[in-house]
């Protein structure tokens, strides 16, 4: 299967590319989507992998950003970020034609299993990008996946919400806000927020996810796997939900990063497996981990 094989490729070569900015879109809440021409990176990226980007020549430390979309033919990658400090603010100020140095693609991505085709993708805030990448990968794969995407945000979503034409009988009709891109791929998506946005579920992504899971039969549940990226409290809640329904769950983690290629061990997190406790590097051992190994009961 293409998807699972592709995810394994990222133990391979990492490229250093002088990428050029080919599009910049800004959204409320200081959110930006930047499209970069970085052909080598695009050719090898998989859902869950990331780039280590130099925001500006005056700020030498790089920032890790999840890849949201790639076009291998046109050689571009797209990233979404919210400006939190000086570095990403500088990146948000980039104009079409500007050059930025990119290292990538880096990391083990998500690996869906054909035994669990009902993939539930849960993205929160700036954790949305890898969920979009995974959804597009499943959409383009020749296997019959059944993805559902749930996104949460406490600031306006970084896209112009559309009303979904894909029915979700497990949910009230008025909760029909969705991401246009996913809608165009025929993938159902629903949005959650505590802010009371029109068309969105008022509550947490995990509350919305629970509604769907409770609508499934036992045999359907056996075909479900969770994939998630977002703030740590959300990932903990997703891991807890997976445990509650006895589901497999893969989460993409974030940590301050220096080298991003496994050289410094600066981004290590505590992982517990049958081999015992270990400190694993988010950059090259992850960023995707089995949720049960990083969030204890």
């Amino acid at each position: 299967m293409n998807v699972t094989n592709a995810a394994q490729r990222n133990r391979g070569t990492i490229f250093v590319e002088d990428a050029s900015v080919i599009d910049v879109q800004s959204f409320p809440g200081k959110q930006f989507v930047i499209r970069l021409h970085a052909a080598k990176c695009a050719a090898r990226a998989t859902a869950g992998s990331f780039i280590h980007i130099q925001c500006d020549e005056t700020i030498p430390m790089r920032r890790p950003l999840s890849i949201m979309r790639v076009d291998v033919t046109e050689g571009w990658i797209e990233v979404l970020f919210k400006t939190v400090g000086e570095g990403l603010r500088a990146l948000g100020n980039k104009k079409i034609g500007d050059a930025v140095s990119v290292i990538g693609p880096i990391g083990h991505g998500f690996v869906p299993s054909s035994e669990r085709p009902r993939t539930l993708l849960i993205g929160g805030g700036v954790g949305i990008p890898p969920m979009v990448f995974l959804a597009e990968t499943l959409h383009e794969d020749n296997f019959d996946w059944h993805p559902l995407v749930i996104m949460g945000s406490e600031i306006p979503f970084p896209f112009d919400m559309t009303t979904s034409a894909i029915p979700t009988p497990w949910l009230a009709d008025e909760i029909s806000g969705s991401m246009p891109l996913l809608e165009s791929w025929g993938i159902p998506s629903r949005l959650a927020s505590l802010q009371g946005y029109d068309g969105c579920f008022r509550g947490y992504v995990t509350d919305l996810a629970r509604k769907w899971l409770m609508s499934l039969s036992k045999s359907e549940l056996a075909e479900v796997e969770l994939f998630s990226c977002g703030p740590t409290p959300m990932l903990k809640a997703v891991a807890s939900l997976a445990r509650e329904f006895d589901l497999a769950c893969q989460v993409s983690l974030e940590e301050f990063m220096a080298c991003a290629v496994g050289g410094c061990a600066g981004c290590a997190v505590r992982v517990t497996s049958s081999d015992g406790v270990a400190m694993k590097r988010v950059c090259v051992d992850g960023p995707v981990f089995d949720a049960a190994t990083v969030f204890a009961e």
Partner: protein
Amino acid sequence: MRLDSPIVLLSGCVGFGEEYTRIEGFSNRDAGAIVLKGTTLEPRLGNPPHRVYETPMGMLNAIGLQNPGVDKVVDEILPGLDFTETRFMANVCGSTIEDYAAVTRRFDDSPIDAIEINISCPNIKEGGVSFGNYPEMSAKVVAACRAQTSKPIIAKLSPNQTDIRENARLCIEAGADALAVINTVMGMAIDAESRKPIIGNVRGGLSGPAIKPIALLKVHQAYEVAGPNNIPVIGQGGISNAADAIEFIIAGASTVGVGTALFYDPLVCTKINDGIADYLKRHNFASVSDLVGTLQY
């Protein structure tokens, strides 16, 4: 010991020697030597997150010597390294003088080319103070290691002390064949909102361009002692480009250490090598050694 390039890749920045070779365009051959991750007698998990944090023109790190222990390094990692590409040096750490001696003895019976002694580790028998901050304690560590090996020994000196010259003198008397100057400068970062330290270990080592002026002075002071004894100094601390490297050589360094700069640009070694060669040609120096310690005042 002759090195093919004056660049030494620094301990803690390049893992166990193979991590950066995944990057297209990077070669271990571009460095004269590579110092492996700090190694202790027993395996160590290292510190909890956060382990790294960006600061103005630099970064703090407190990795906590995560390593699999010297037996695993010698038995499983060293056999996988290509010693025809560059020189590999061990970095020996310990909590007691006996630990340092035992790790050195283990590396003595290995293909490693030289042994760097990281005397900045905390001494658990003296309340956790760093061996390296006290000249007598530093010399005791060096002497204990000297007794265990005939391989070249490098003492990595701390900047966190009153007079580095005295420390250099005692380490040379104790049998050091070379000095590495400087290790990181101790610092901390605080999150004012939570009033908590950002680094999991509370304190960490500052590296990057921010410490370059400190390092230049310490290198020059160490050279005043080492030069007359024909003891080479590996100058390190914030070197990011060829101009920085040349300044360190003029201050008295025979070779230059590169660490944090790799995080900015993984392909920086070739640029530094080319820049040094260009400088030597422009100023009619036949080799790097002719430029060492030529500071005029």
